[in-house]
């Protein structure tokens, strides 16, 4: 019974989601349901902030500094995508009241993921999260692309879950435990079966964070899913999976880090390089953002590969800045609307600075920030990652990182080029984006002024990692 108190935020969200599901049937007001959902997510943030640090359910569910910070980040991402949903639900043909509820369910899954300290808890969280996402991806029933995205995501996701489960069974078989801490105690460094288990679990998790070579679903799903959902994909699940990855590797396999380090090493390099080259050829903004997020995950993985507190700190800084930048980008994408139609090709941006000077200026700065040009926030993310990499003497990783960032600067610059240098097209609507401004302006301003006072983000990261190391 005592344990139930420790999962109060998750429990609260679960009750809210169930109640909303029932009320939604009778109450046809989607806006109200969405508002209630946002409100309950905010309440959850407060609940999380006031929770005592404790472990529950025989130490399979941990509430600590790390989970606290990641949960708040995830909730911010969820709230952002709910705000995106309000502004676009009518035009995107996703006027379905289940949307906020599915988001909540997925959020619960993610919260379980970052708190999980047990292979089973980890799997439950992961599946709750994924199943909601499969439905979300296919939410626009009338769109072929959306259905394709849903199916594709489901099949590949199921496959990765299978791999993950297979890996879990190996780990359980060779260590006799499912609890991360107990695995760490009973670890046998010589055991080959354990390594096989780690490889399979990592493959499954790499799929969830969309790291190369398990990234194939990302561009298609990003493109096919309705934009607010794509925004959600880019924001919350990756951060949650990253948190899970860290806890899984650091808590249970810290002792044999040499073995998994090279795997992370490889997928990090592969993600950075592949994303940098593949994104150059994209014409669709959402596909481009998919490759961009693959690349960013590659950078974040450098922080994991270091296996130092410096690396973990840089990972968290990176994830926070990544979240803010992506909120801005997807809010921007949703504001590209003209005559009730949305535009997502890069060429549609052509010359838009003539009609929307301020909006274009801010998004251009976001692009520079994604490319990691100082003095914008994106630079600091990369800076800390490289600090961590060089400190753990992974100079090679850092060099690949900077080379990839120069290459990827090219495609971000191409967007700026098209917005500023090309001939203008028709104006975009400005009326329906009021709620998006709520996301767009604060996040872009945060990115621009980040350099003046970066300490809060750094302090939060330092606070978060103290429970892992």
């Amino acid at each position: 019974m005592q344990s139930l108190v420790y999962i109060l935020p998750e429990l609260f969200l679960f009750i809210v989601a169930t109640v909303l599901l029932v009320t939604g049937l009778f109450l046809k007001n989607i806006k109200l349901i969405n508002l209630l959902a946002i409100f309950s997510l905010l309440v959850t943030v407060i609940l999380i902030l006031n929770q005592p640090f404790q472990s529950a359910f025989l130490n399979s569910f941990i509430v600590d500094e790390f989970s606290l910070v990641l949960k708040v980040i995830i909730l911010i991402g969820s709230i952002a995508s709910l705000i995106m949903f309000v502004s676009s639900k009518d035009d995107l043909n996703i006027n379905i009241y289940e949307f906020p509820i599915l988001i909540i369910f997925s959020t619960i899954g993610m919260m379980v993921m970052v708190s999980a300290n047990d292979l089973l808890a980890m799997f439950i969280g992961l599946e709750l999260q994924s199943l909601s996402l499969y439905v979300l991806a296919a939410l626009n029933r009338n769109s072929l692309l959306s259905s394709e995205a849903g199916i594709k995501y489901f099949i590949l996701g199921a496959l990765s879950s299978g791999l993950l489960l297979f890996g879990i069974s190996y780990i359980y078989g060779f260590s006799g435990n499912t609890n991360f801490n107990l695995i760490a105690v009973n670890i046998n460094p010589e055991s080959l079966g354990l390594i096989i288990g780690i490889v399979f679990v990592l493959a499954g998790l790499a799929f969830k964070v969309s790291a190369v070579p398990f990234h194939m679903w990302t561009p298609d799903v990003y493109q096919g899913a309705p934009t607010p959902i794509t925004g959600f994909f880019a924001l919350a699940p990756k951060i949650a999976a990253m948190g899970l990855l860290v806890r899984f590797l650091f808590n249970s396999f810290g002792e044999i880090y040499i073995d998994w380090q090279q795997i992370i090493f490889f997928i990090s390099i592969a993600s950075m390089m592949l994303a940098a080259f593949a994104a150059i050829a994209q014409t669709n903004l959402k596909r481009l953002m998919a490759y961009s997020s693959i690349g960013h995950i590659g950078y974040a993985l450098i922080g994991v590969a270091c296996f130092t507190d410096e690396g973990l700190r840089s990972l968290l800084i990176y994830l926070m800045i990544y979240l803010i930048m992506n909120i801005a980008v997807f809010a921007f994408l949703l504001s590209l609307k003209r005559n009730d139609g949305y535009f997502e090709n890069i060429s549609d941006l052509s010359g838009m600075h003539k009609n929307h000077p301020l909006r274009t200026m801010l998004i251009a700065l976001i692009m520079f920030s994604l490319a990691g040009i100082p003095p914008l926030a994106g630079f600091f993310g990369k800076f800390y990652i490289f600090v961590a990499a060089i400190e753990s003497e992974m100079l090679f990783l850092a060099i690949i990182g900077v080379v990839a960032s120069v290459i990827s600067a090219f495609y971000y610059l191409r967007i700026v080029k098209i917005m500023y240098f090309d001939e203008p097209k028709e104006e975009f609507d400005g009326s329906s984006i009021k709620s998006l401004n709520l996301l767009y302006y604060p996040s872009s301003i945060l990115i621009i002024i980040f350099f003046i006072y970066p300490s809060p983000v750094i302090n939060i990261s330092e606070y978060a990692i103290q429970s892992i190391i």
Partner: protein
Amino acid sequence: MSEIPILSILIFIPVVGIFFMLLIRNNDDQSSQNLKHTALWIAFLNFIISLSLLFSFDLNNPDFQFVEKYAWIESGISYHLGIDGVSILFVILTTMLVPICILASYESIKFSVKEYLISFLALETFMIGVFCSLDLVLFYLFFEGGLIPMFLIIGIWGGERRVYSTFKFFLYTLAGSVFMLLAIIYIFISTGTTDVETLLMYNFTTNEQLILWIAFFTSFMVKIPMWPFHTWLPDAHVEAPTAGSVILAGVLLKMAGYGFIRFSIGFFPDASEFFAPFIFSLSVIAIIVTSLIALVQEDMKKLIAYSSVAHMGFVTLGIFTFTVQGIEGGIIQMISHGIVSAALFLCVGVVYDRLHTREIARYGGLVSKMPFYSFSFMIFILASLGLPGTSGFVGEFLVLLSIFSINTYFAIFATTGVVLAATYSLWLYRRIIFGALIKDDLSEMFDLTRREIIIFLPLIILTISIGLYPKPIINIIEPSTEKIVNQIKMKLD
């Protein structure tokens, strides 16, 4: 005086100006005039404030002055500003050129005026920041940040091939700089600080020095630029709007020269000594090769751009002699080149605004229509080829003097560059200004307007006064330069 954070004020006045300009909403002619006036006044105000630096600057103090230091990112990386004799002149050069650039853009920029002026003021912030920062991370922030506004300036308001040029400019410089970033991080990790003052006292091992030196060098080599990585410069110059070229030649190239003096030879004297012959060779090749290339150019801006590469060759020659004369010569050469090449690009801009072509063959015999223009153009051409009595002479002379004391061969080859400079400059002048006015479309040309005279006058005065009486400038530079040279000597022994 020390209580007022004057350097921060200098850096952030343009930012405040940007906020003001964002408030001007309309997009008609009247508001764009207002925008131009606002920007001009902000830049001019900054110039006046920077002059006050000169008056309160202690000439006998070789250390950093007007120092400000606040905790910033974390321990070891602080917001640390300060200037000494080496950097003060660059700050003033920057604040002087920006109002001139804005004034020069009054007629030539016809659309998106607000974005243009905002880019320029942002660029000013970054440029002043580069010369003031005494922290490597802060330096890198400003050094790279300048790419963003410059990318937009070339790309939006440039000529026909502007997209190609601006991408080349951006990616070249970025690719060069990221290795400097890694080097900075390495320094931060191995010494625990990125504070320049502390690091100047720190002794790196020789192996560390060699690698770090190369990392810094790739960045500065691309930026200054040195042969064979100079190819972005002519493209960028040709396509940039006049004011963009002015600021590019006038200030942006100097950031790299400043970096060489402050960081490359300051932090890594052993490596610098080791690589000095290599630098000399590259510089001499640059001087001769780019001068020869300049001879065959059909485009005025391209010719001046190549001459810039040659002139910067003298700068690197001077810096890596590690003598007081050489470094002073390098600094004066940079200041002089900042004034003269900026003025030359403005000269091109004047005729370009009237005829909309930069092709040399389209001109000829302008002297009969534009006497004032011909006169100012002549002064700058003569200064560019280093005629005694102009600012160009002082720097080149000091550099050649110092390189003679080190190595005669390099000196002989470098001197041929002076002859070549005379050839292409005078030939350019002859083809544009002299001869009979036979081309029909030139008959419409009119002489300098009042605005253009205001632009040229300070530059002419400076060119001649530095040339005739360089003593005040040398007085400013000398103590700090001596300190740098002594430090190097001490570290080498």
